[in-house]
Each structure stands twice: as structure tokens, then as C-alpha cells.
């Protein structure tokens, strides 16, 4: 099911009927190769994109030529649902990895809005999650130092992937270069490299070959001042995302 990860394990979840309704609104699936721009800033948009497989980014190109990653998306994210109301984006959306997306025309979203208010509320919840994450990203850049920023991003990604079953709480695919992580955390490659080494030497986390292995989640969480409340996860998932829950992974 294309919509199976949407709002999965969040405080607002979709019913099977609602998922089926949304599934019926999908006009097509598309595949993009890693590095492709899927939605370009300023282009008029009449469809929204649900990420089914892979990872995507939102990025802003600064006038000085630097690219800033302002969001990283995982399966289940309705990457540009805000375009339904805005009709164009103030940033680009790109494929971080090879991705599969489901395309939902805005006309179909409008019909859903009239047909199912609860589903509409769920979709609104999804865009509010985006806003909540943006607030945390601002906090992260403003208040945390280099190692805390990277630790916070790793905790957040682990939590989001845990919610969709793509992390066991310790291991997850992280198909990002040090440059990508640097763009997320506003750090240079050399700074990211040093921080990742420090995290490894402290026995907290190992990131290599597009894979993250969190070796001490509780300590990593504490170092990052990471509190997953802003992700609006089901309580059991939120506990696992901070290492409080000692339940076996799997």
C-alpha cells in the first residue's frame, strides 16, 4: 500500500478506510534517481508528492551558491502537501536517494477534503509535523554546538525511521554524505568528520557506509538534548526513540 507509512505510529493515525480513500486519490507513481530535482522552487504545482520509498530533501539555494538542506524526508512523508494551498514552493524538493513517489492531484485532494473531514484533519496534522520539525531545526542550529547538532539529527532520524519500521532503534540506513549532514547542521565537511569521530570514540554512534549504528541511544539523546515530543509519536515509539524503553528491538 502506497500510503502505509503516512502518519504511522503518530498520535494521529489514519484508519484503513482513510488510507484506502487516499490511495484511490493517487493518480500515478513515479521514480526519480538520486540527485534529481523533483519539484523546483517557484514552479506552479497542481499535484502533491507522497514519498513511498527512499529519502528526499527540501533545499534552499543561497545567492552565494551554497545549498542548505532545510528538511530530510522519509517514507510516509507528504513532501509538498503544503503546495496544495500554496500552489508553488519557496524551496526545491530533491531525491536524496533513488525514490518512488505517489502523485496526488490537488483536484483529488479537494474532493477528499469535502468527502472526509477526519482524513483532512490527518493531512493537516502531517503538514503541522513539518512545521514542528522546522522549529526544532531552528532551535538546533541556534542553540546546539556541533556535536550536539549532529547527535540531535541522528536521534531525530532514528525516531522517524523507528515509527515506520525502518530502524530497530539502533541501526538504520543513512544514505547521506558528510556534506549532506553538514548542510543539515550548518557545518563543514571537516567539522562533521571530526564530530562523527568523536561520537564514535565516545561510544555513542557509528556512521559509515550509509549506515548509522547507535551504540548508546540514551547517552546520545542526553547529549543532544533530544526530546521527541515534537514528532508526536505514539508513546511506546517515543520511549524507544530515547532509549528509555529497554524492550528488545526488532
Amino acid at each position, binding site marked *: 500500500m502506497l500510503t502505509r507509512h503516512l502518519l504511522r505510529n503518530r498520535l494521529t493515525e489514519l484508519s484503513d478506510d482513510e488510507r484506502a480513500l487516499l490511495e484511490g486519490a493517487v493518480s500515478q507513481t513515479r521514480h526519480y534517481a538520486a540527485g534529481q530535482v523533483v519539484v523546483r522552487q517557484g514552479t506552479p504545482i497542481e499535484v502533491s508528492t507522497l514519498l513511498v520509498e527512499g529519502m528526499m530533501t527540501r533545499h534552499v539555494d543561497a545567492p552565494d551558491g551554497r545549498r542548505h538542506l532545510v528538511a530530510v524526508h522519509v517514507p510516509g512523508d507528504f513532501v509538498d502537501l503544503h503546495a496544495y494551498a500554496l500552489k508553488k514552493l519557496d524551496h526545491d524538493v530533491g531525491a536524496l536517494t533513488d525514490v518512488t513517489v505517489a502523485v496526488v492531484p490537488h483536484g483529488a485532494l479537494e474532493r477528499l477534503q469535502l468527502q472526509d473531514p477526519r482524513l483532512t484533519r490527518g493531512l493537516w496534522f502531517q503538514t503541522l509535523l513539518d512545521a514542528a520539525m522546522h522549529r526544532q531545526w531552528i532551535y538546533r542550529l541556534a542553540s546546539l554546538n556541533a*556535536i550536539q*547538532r549532529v547527535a540531535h539529527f541522528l536521534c531525530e532520524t532514528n525516531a522517524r525511521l523507528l515509527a515506520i519500521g525502518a530502524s530497530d532503534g539502533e541501526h538504520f540506513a543513512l544514505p547521506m554524505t558528510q556534506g549532506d549532514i553538514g548542510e543539515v547542521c550548518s*557545518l563543514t565537511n571537516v567539522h562533521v568528520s571530526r564530530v562523527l569521530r568523536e561520537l564514535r570514540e565516545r561510544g555513542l554512534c557509528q556512521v559509515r557506509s550509509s549506515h548509522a549504528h547507535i551504540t548508546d541511544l540514551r547517552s546520545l539523546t542526553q547529549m543532544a538534548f533530544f526530546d521527541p515530543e515534537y514528532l508526536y509519536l505514539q508513546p511506546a515509539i517515543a520511549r524507544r526513540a530515547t532509549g528509555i524503553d529497554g524492550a528488545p528491538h526488532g
Partner: protein
Amino acid sequence: MADRRAMLAPRTDAGRATAENGVVLLDGPDGVAVTMTADAAARTADSLLEAARQAREQAAARGPGAADAGEGLD
């Protein structure tokens, strides 16, 4: 109810500068995380030392306890 938020105030802890792969990394205090070339780091260091000297003079002129008070809005 009392507002328990910590006010933004001048930091009393220092940032930590380290050399890595031919550049200088400055970490902290607070959210500072900057990579500089050696030359830029040296110029920053000079600028910081000069500003620190001036700030000490300003603080001395204002008297004891006024060093970190800053200018209030009210």
C-alpha cells in the same frame, strides 16, 4: 507564575578551538560551530583579544558588578 527561562546573557565559558586537517574548528560557547582557515582564525583571535581588552576597560569604567549587565530596555 514565575518565568523560569534562562535569559540570554554573556557567556562566561570559552569556546574551544582545535586544528583539524589544516583548518581551525571553533566549538562553542553555546551554538557556535565554525570552521576557519588558519589565517582567518588568527585574525579572529587578534580581534577577540583586542575586543576583550576594550571590554575590560569599559567594565572597569562602569564599576564593580556592571560588567555583564548590558544596556537595558526599561
